[in-house]
């Protein structure tokens, strides 16, 4: 009996010991480790803001000492490098400047956040930098957990030089900035003029109500004349990008989502937007297939010439303009070649619509999405220093100009856009810069990923008519409230 008892006791003690060992977070000896980074004087040879916003980026003083012995740094790139020519170009420039080789793993956007958390939770020091490709939803959680290295080059002047809609989202409660923006995508409205014309839509839709009417007409026309897998409007409802659509509907009515720190969709504007987007599927103006589409899928459907309209990334103009990636875009339905000057075919881009005719034009607004780039706090100090340099370079005017011209991503540094030399090389510069001006940015609280998954699920069920849309929204919202209670 005593033997059994002692075995039992031993088991319990072992369990406790292991659990405590596993759950206890190791204290870091932070003081000594910071040294390498402290060797860098971010305000020399000139102020950080001047180093960053000049036509050519200048490395800060002391960088060589801080990164001594670092031969390569490694980070998670969002998606394939083949799709990021500007990033590749910037890496090349950085390597020439510093002699530090930049390596990356291609991590698809569907699993990027998982893998990033994976690295942080396990304090793996082999990955030195990482990007969060839906920064607005994910960043607060990561900063809150203490999983990002503060970026000392964010001086007050630097903060002032970058968009004040986004910088707060990168800032922690302690006032330090923990991330930089890697790539940025605003939304613009895409349409195919020849389809609208053929379907009898007289003017380019300016409000979401007009979009809906046009979508029903073009869908009917396309089904009759082109085939069953041609659609009026397409959007993504599989991934968190669905939220961007809902947000566009809400922002276009002049409202916001986050209220008292909780994402709130069950508001008058939220209900309008929810009914609108589920209605597009229920009325057949958008196919049920949208439920299985990510950002990549639906925009590909449009650029392959299978849809009349979409609210798409401003960056997608580069895909549409490329005859290889989007062969159908160069010809219109009347059989004529629509290829005009570079970037023009049978497609066009305008600012996002406003809700209805009563709204002011300043509400032609959508969400702005960005990839946040962070440095792994668990990496070795020299590697962190090297990664900080790389992050700094990535947000400089020089690097941003490459993003804008080569890849078509919006520029995080606004001065890039206003530089006439750069602007003339950009396709559709007017609607794009207009959409950046009206764009709305909100930072979402921790737990948003779970909230998003809930919304995506309820959206899907109500879009196929399994549940009444408003009832679905109410249930979704009460589950979201439950997360934050």
């Amino acid at each position, binding site marked *: 009996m005593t033997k059994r008892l002692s075995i039992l006791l031993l*088991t319990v003690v*072992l*369990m*406790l010991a*292991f*659990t405590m060992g*596993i*759950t206890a977070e190791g204290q870091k000896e932070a003081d000594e480790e910071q040294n390498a980074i402290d060797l860098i004087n971010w305000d020399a040879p000139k102020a950080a803001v001047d180093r960053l916003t000049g036509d050519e980026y200048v490395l800060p003083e002391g960088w060589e000492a801080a990164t001594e012995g670092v031969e390569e740094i490694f980070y998670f790139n969002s998606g394939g490098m083949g799709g990021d020519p500007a990033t590749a170009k910037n890496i090349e420039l950085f390597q020439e400047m510093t002699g530090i080789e930049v390596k990356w793993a291609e991590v698809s956007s*569907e699993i990027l*956040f*998982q893998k990033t*958390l*994976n690295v942080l*939770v396990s304090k793996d020091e082999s990955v030195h930098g990482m990007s969060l490709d839906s920064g607005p939803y994910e960043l607060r*959680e990561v900063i*809150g*957990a203490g*999983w990002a290295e503060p970026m000392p080059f964010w001086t007050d002047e630097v903060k002032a030089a970058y968009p004040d809609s986004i910088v707060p989202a990168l800032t922690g409660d302690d006032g330090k900035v923990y991330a930089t923006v890697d790539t940025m995508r605003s939304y613009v409205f895409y349409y195919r003029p020849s389809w609208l014309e053929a379907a009898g839509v007289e003017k380019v839709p300016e409000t979401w109500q007009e979009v809906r009417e046009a979508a029903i007409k073009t869908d009917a026309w396309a089904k009759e004349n082109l*085939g*069953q*897998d041609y659609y009026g409007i397409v959007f993504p*409802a*599989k991934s968190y990008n669905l939220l961007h659509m809902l947000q566009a509907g809400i922002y276009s009515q002049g409202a916001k989502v986050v209220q008292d720190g909780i994402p709130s969709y069950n508001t008058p504007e939220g209900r309008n937007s929810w009914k609108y987007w589920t209605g597009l599927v229920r009325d057949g103006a958008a*196919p*049920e*297939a*949208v*439920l*299985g*589409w990510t950002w990549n899928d639906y925009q590909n459907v449009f650029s392959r010439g*299978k849809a009349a309209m979409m609210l798409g990334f401003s960056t997608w103009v580069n895909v549409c303009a490329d005859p290889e990636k989007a062969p159908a875009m160069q010809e219109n339905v009347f059989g004529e070649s629509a290829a005009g000057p570079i970037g023009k075919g049978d497609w066009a881009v305008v600012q996002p619509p406003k809700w209805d005719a009563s709204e002011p034009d300043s509400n032609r607004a959508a969400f702005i999405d960005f990839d946040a780039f962070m440095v792994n706090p668990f990496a070795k100090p020299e590697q962190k220093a090297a990664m900080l340099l790389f992050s700094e370079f990535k947000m400089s005017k020089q690097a941003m100009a490459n993003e804008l011209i080569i890849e078509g991503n919006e520029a995080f540094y606004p001065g890039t856009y206003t530089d006439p030399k750069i602007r003339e090389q950009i396709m559709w510069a007017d609607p794009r810069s207009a959409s950046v001006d009206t764009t709305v940015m909100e930072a979402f609280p*921790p*737990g948003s*990923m*779970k909230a998003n*998954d*809930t919304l*995506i*699920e*309820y*959206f*899907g*069920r109500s*879009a*196929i008519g399994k549940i009444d849309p408003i009832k679905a929204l109410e249930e979704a919202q009460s*589950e979201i409230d439950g997360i934050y209670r």
Partner: protein
Amino acid sequence: MKMRNIPDSKFGMLLSLPGLFLLVLWVGIPLLILISVSFLRFNVLEPTQFIGFDNYIHLFKDRVFRNALLRTITFFAGSTLLTFLLAYPTAWSLSRIRKGGTTLRTLVMFPWAVPLIVSGFIWGWMFNAAYGVINHLFVTIGLFESNINFIGQSGTAMLAVVIADAWTRVPFMTILTLAGLEAISRTLYESADMDGADIFQKTRYITLPLAKGPILTGLLITSVFSFRTIDAIFSLTKGGPARGTYVLGMLNLDYIYNYIEFGRAAAVSVYLALICLLIAAVYIYFLLKE
């Protein structure tokens, strides 16, 4: 030699020591940790705290968990059934084929070499709404009017993941069933033939009862595997659309890697293990019932 002096029972213990060591280290300790963690509130934003059965109760009341449980059962039952429906005729035919039997057996095994994650991609490509070969075949023979987006609709998406899963499990099930069929003596069938029994009677009274052991073992392994393996879902639908293929394994993974709530993840894991053992117990009961 010293070894010789060790009594048999000690020898057995010594020799199986590495195995025991693995057993304790590899399974015992993780299991203990799993159970301990399931009683904690353990995430990154709040301090870690003992909360008793709260995680279990929360999950039990959670709609997402209950739906996932339902989907899991649909998924594993569908996969097991489909596997058996394909494997049994295959094994039966193989047991009757003499000429070219070896080649056929090798060919039947090919899908086994396909990692489930790859199976998901393959079927995803074949089910593709725009270019998929299955759509083309069905439209050509007039079964569908136009292309169907299998992966994008809740009902058909479940069917698609079941097919992708079962496809790789058929070979294993076939071999086991075949083993059972070949162990049955020919003379039994011959005497049944003389009594004028038809094939249904022979299957009912000879084949199934006598091959029961291997078939049930195969079904057990197939069920337990498809119950817990989410690779095909992971690469085909990621749980969508509208969580139509969202099984417990996906929920577990989300708690670990998207929501970072380890306590909840552990509780899901424990539920998962318990249900798996329950399924196994049912089979083993039938296997030993005699």
